[in-house]
């Protein structure tokens, strides 16, 4: 682990990246829904610019950039740190939040002549709150600070699920909240145990002190279980499909593309940054096996859904499973671990863009046809060519066909599995791709069949273009140069040249 300098040049950018959407949230609350929309939309380019600036600083320094809040270095103070993965995640979050925000203008504009709109106010506030919480998760350097960020993320995500107030959405939101609350207390108990053992919660200080004591294993198990509940890894996925399928499309895109990645990112931080001293064979095998089960169950259930949004939501359950292969495939300091690491991060990015694109497209289909029953899609692709192109391209990435980010992720994981002799993980990786092909076919086959689709309302071209843009990014990830993967290695423990 790299010794932590208190504050590096450019460290204040991290504070800005967190504070900007947080301030936007507060101002939106004070000024009402009409202003909230303007604030949220206005902040998106600024936030994107800030995230790019952070990435450039990290790339220029070749090392993580850090900021000690209040000038107090850890263990007394709290540090913010951004390494290569943090910077990439911040850029991803800003792009998807911006896409969802501009897409949502049609649905969540405050109508003329109306003083205040509850749904609009909730949406514009919560999307900024999610963004602030995600940025804090990506740069947080203190486990308790990260707990607070995780809670902020949950409290911002739950209202988005039940924004239209139908009873089934309220029940979905409540179930989501209860799973999340279990996750948060479990994580918090683990934090308490770690603090009791080592007297600090700073990630890099802990990494130097942690040893394989039984209490550390207990804390790691508690924190991991909590994070799995929030990430919706099988068998704790039950809350996800109703929550993500019932939310408005723009909210679903953010929830499925970004919010579940927030808690997964913390699981990465925990195992690769805080606990590199623990032997990883057993926990890696457990997490990988759960991931394999998630791939199989999620895909099979997706094959059986009658509604498009539920199908896409179950596909999220399956794709989350792939993320967890990173634990066996990137463990330790082997020659193949960078492959597994790159594959895992690439899967986060590819799924984030592809799934956000597919949810936005699914929302357009539901608005145009008045329903999202797959059986009623006959001829719809002729009426909505751009939207079904988006669904198809996103689907290609989920299947892992070249040239897409999903292919790149699975290819890297397969190479890591072969190089490390853990060929067993190649079975769910390849099998899941086949099953994904099945459920994407189920969407596209009826849509491409002959027939006359009854279009109730033609979606705006601009919204179709936003969804298509995200799908194109998921494709473009396949052409990521080697420099991108080198960038992801910045700050990774065990990365070349920074032995613990």
């Amino acid at each position, binding site marked *: 682990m790299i010794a932590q300098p208190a504050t590096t040049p450019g460290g204040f950018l991290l504070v800005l990246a967190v504070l900007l959407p947080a301030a936007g949230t507060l101002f939106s609350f004070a000024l009402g829904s009409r202003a909230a929309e303007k604030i949220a939309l206005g902040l998106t380019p600024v936030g994107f610019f800030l995230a790019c600036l952070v990435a450039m600083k990290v790339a220029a320094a070749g090392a993580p950039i850090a900021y000690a809040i209040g000038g107090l270095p850890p*263990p007394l103070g709290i540090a913010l740190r951004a390494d290569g993965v943090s910077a990439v995640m911040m850029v991803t979050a800003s792009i998807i939040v911006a896409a969802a925000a501009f897409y949502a203008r049609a649905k969540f504009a405050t109508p003329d002549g109306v003083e205040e709109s509850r749904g609009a106010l909730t949406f514009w506030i919560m999307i900024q709150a999610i963004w602030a919480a995600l940025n804090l998760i990506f740069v947080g350097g203190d486990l*308790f600070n990260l*707990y*607070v960020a995780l*809670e902020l993320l*949950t*409290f911002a995500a*739950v*209202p988005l699920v*039940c924004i*239209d*107030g*139908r*009873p*089934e959405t*309220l*029940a979905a*939101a*409540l*179930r989501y*909240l*209860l799973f999340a*609350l*279990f996750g*948060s*207390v479990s994580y*918090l*108990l683990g*934090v*308490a*145990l770690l*603090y*009791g*053992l*080592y*007297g*600090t919660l700073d990630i890099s200080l802990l990494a130097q002190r942690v040893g394989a004591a039984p209490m550390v294993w207990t804390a790691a198990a508690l924190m991991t279980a909590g994070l799995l509940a929030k990430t919706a890894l099988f068998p704790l996925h039950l809350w996800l499909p109703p929550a993500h399928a*019932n939310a*408005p499309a723009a909210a679903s895109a953010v929830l499925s593309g970004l919010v579940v990645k927030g808690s997964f990112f913390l699981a990465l931080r925990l195992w690769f940054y805080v606990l590199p001293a623990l032997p990883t064979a057993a926990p890696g095998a457990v997490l990988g096996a759960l991931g394999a089960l998630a791939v199989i169950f999620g895909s099979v259930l997706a094959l059986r859904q*009658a*509604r498009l949004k539920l199908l896409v939501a179950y596909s999220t359950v399956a794709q989350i499973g792939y993320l967890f292969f990173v634990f066996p495939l990137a463990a330790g300091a082997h020659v193949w671990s960078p492959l597994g690491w790159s594959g895992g991060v690439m899967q986060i990015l590819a799924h984030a863009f592809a799934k956000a694109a597919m949810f936005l497209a699914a929302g357009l289909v*539901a*608005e145009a*046809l*008045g*329903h*999202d*029953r797959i059986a009623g899609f006959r001829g719809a692709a002729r009426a909505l060519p751009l939207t079904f192109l988006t669904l198809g391209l996103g689907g290609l990435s989920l299947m892992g066909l070249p040239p897409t980010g999903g292919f790149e992720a699975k290819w890297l994981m397969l190479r890591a599995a072969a190089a490390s002799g853990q060929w067993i993980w190649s079975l769910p990786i390849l099998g899941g791709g086949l099953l994904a092909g099945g459920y994407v076919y189920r969407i596209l086959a009826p849509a491409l069949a002959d027939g006359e689709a009854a279009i109730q309302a033609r979606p705006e071209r601009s919204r179709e273009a936003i969804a298509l843009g995200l799908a194109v990014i998921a494709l473009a990830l396949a052409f990521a140069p080697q420099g991108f993967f080198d960038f992801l290695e910045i700050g990774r423990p065990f990365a070349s040249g920074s032995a613990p």
Partner: protein
Amino acid sequence: MNPSLLAGLVGAALVGLGLYGLIAHPHPLRKLLAFNLVGSGVFLVFGVVARRGAAAGYAFDPVPQAMVITGIVVAFAASALAVALILRLAVAGGDVSLDPQASGRRDDGEAE
């Protein structure tokens, strides 16, 4: 038995009881109360940690106390959000069970 050990054991018992309630009770309000029970247990454990003074050998470590205060605020906010959801659910549907079989309404895929 010293006070720290007693507090630790009570904390563990509260966490255990709360987890049981969180899993076993179908009614969301009971689940919420069980969550608060787990939270209380975790805060007690933080108290024990503070008493032991893990950091720098202080007799009483103030940092875990600050964490407990933050944790209580977070748990309070979570409970308020959950109660608000349960109330809205009771008003909207009159049925607050999370049992999918008990729910009268079927989701038929109509767009909202």
